[in-house]
């Protein structure tokens, strides 16, 4: 039951972005396309249960939404005729295999504020509600809705084309899209669900098909696939399980094989990139299924490379956590203490990692305080349960 509901949701998501892309491709009016599509979904909910599900539900939705859009445009005198949706008596959706891809390029266009790329992609390509996006970005719904509306108005008014960018622009444009997909994936990772990660993997795979010789989309797809392979192992009895302690029997070994193949294809192309390194880090963890132990030396090398080439707060914390395994907790703590306190005030992984290293370094009281700091920043139930268990396991002083 849960599975089929999941499948239906995934199918609806896949259709959503494709239909929005097709409906908005000529007028570039994403908001109008979304309105028409939500009317079509509403009509489906009332007519399908009694009249039966049409043979091609997606084509039915497209035709219904298109009629709706044409009606609205005829009624609305402000619209000039040239923004009419192309008439197609019998829409053949296979003619639009890359419709979602084009919409992704629109969402991550350099003329659109970078901070809106991921939210816009979540809403228009995946059909995520503005309220859910706002929650994921820790913003008031009205603020997020306003940013999305503004971005869509700009796309329409400024004439951003629904097309695959020209060859000269393509590398930079693909990089922006990979960043936006990663943003969607990372968001989901924190929220603890897996539906969006599956979608992120699908979108990354679409990009790899467009750019088979670009290693970064492959690296991103591999990174997401490694993460996805551990969905069943990540939470046990409601408690988060760190990767190096997960039961490798419950990992999806077919997906690990797929991820490994994509990563080695990327690595053969001979230029390094952020997502490749992150995927390589995950491949070291995955290899524990074969060797029964985590290769911390390899992880130190990779997290070190990641932090030097693509420094972020996350890479700094990952580097400290890895080095603590090979050179001792004190060495890791020294690295953590080099990060300016202002930057990490609201960064939960910093406090959780620092707490863990303090506990390893036989400083239970300081560890306790750091775990409390982490807990204050943590809303995800399995992660909270994990932190509370770590606190309970500290030696009493």
């Amino acid at each position, binding site marked *: 039951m849960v599975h089929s509901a999941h499948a239906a949701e995934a199918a609806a998501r896949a259709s959503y972005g494709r239909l929005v892309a097709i409906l908005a491709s000529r007028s570039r009016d994403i908001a109008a396309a979304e309105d028409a599509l939500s009317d079509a979904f509403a009509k489906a909910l009332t007519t399908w249960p009694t009249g039966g599900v049409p043979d091609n539900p997606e084509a039915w939705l497209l035709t219904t939404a298109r009629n709706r859009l044409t009606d609205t445009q005829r009624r609305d005198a402000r619209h*000039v005729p*040239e923004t009419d949706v192309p008439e197609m008596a019998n829409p053949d959706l296979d003619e639009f295999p890359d419709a979602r891809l084009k919409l992704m390029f629109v969402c991550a*266009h*350099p*003329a659109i504020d970078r901070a809106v790329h991921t939210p816009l992609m979540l809403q228009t390509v995946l059909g995520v509600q503005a309220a859910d996006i706002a929650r994921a970005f820790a913003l008031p719904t009205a603020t997020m809705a306003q940013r999305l509306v503004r971005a869509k108005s700009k796309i329409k*008014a*400024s*004439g*951003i*084309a629904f*097309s695959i*960018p*020209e060859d000269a*622009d393509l590398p930079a444009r693909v990089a922006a899209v990979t960043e936006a997909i990663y943003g969607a994936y990372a968001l989901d990772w924190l929220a603890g669900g897996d539906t969006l990660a599956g979608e992120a993997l699908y979108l990354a795979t679409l990009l790899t098909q467009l750019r088979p010789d670009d290693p970064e989309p492959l690296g991103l797809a591999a990174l997401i696939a490694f993460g996805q392979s551990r969905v069943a192992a990540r939470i046990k009895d409601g408690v988060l399980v760190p990767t190096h302690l997960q039961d490798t029997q419950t990992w999806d070994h077919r997906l690990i094989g797929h991820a490994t193949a994509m990563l080695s294809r990327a690595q053969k192309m001979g230029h390094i990139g952020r997502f490749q390194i992150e995927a390589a880090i995950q491949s070291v963890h995955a290899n524990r299924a074969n060797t029964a132990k985590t290769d911390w030396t390899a992880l130190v090398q990779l997290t070190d490379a990641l932090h030097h080439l693509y420094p972020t707060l996350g890479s700094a914390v990952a580097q400290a956590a890895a080095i603590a395994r090979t050179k001792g907790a004190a060495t890791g703590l020294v690295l953590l203490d080099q990060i300016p306190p202002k930057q990490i005030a609201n960064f939960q992984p910093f406090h959780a990692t620092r707490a863990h290293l303090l506990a390893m370094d036989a400083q239970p009281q300081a560890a306790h305080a750091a775990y409390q700091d982490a807990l204050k920043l943590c809303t995800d139930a399995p992660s909270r349960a994990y932190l509370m268990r770590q606190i309970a396991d500290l030696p009493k002083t």
Partner: protein
Amino acid sequence: MRYTFLLYTDPANLAHLTADDWDAEKQLYGAYIQDLKAAGVFIDTDRLHGSDTATTITLLGGTERIQDGPFADTKERLGGLFMVDVPDLDAAMNWARKCPAARFGKVEIRASMMG
């Protein structure tokens, strides 16, 4: 689709240009206009006198007021414009980054509401 490029420059960024430099600039603009025409996208262009020569008129509030100077005293001044006809924003951006004004100032791209 019609786009207007509004060319903004901080006069301080032009202070070092010699007479020869200005001649070279004129040649660059001439070549840019030729390129736009050859591509069939050129509509119009203009180069404006300095904003210190501007006159601003408003009927806001019901009475006419005339101001000696630009409406807003900003560091960067509107110095000229181009109008082009291209299919989409990407094409407009490609022409805007070739505009000689982009080297000393900023080129603001605005799509026409008239299509």
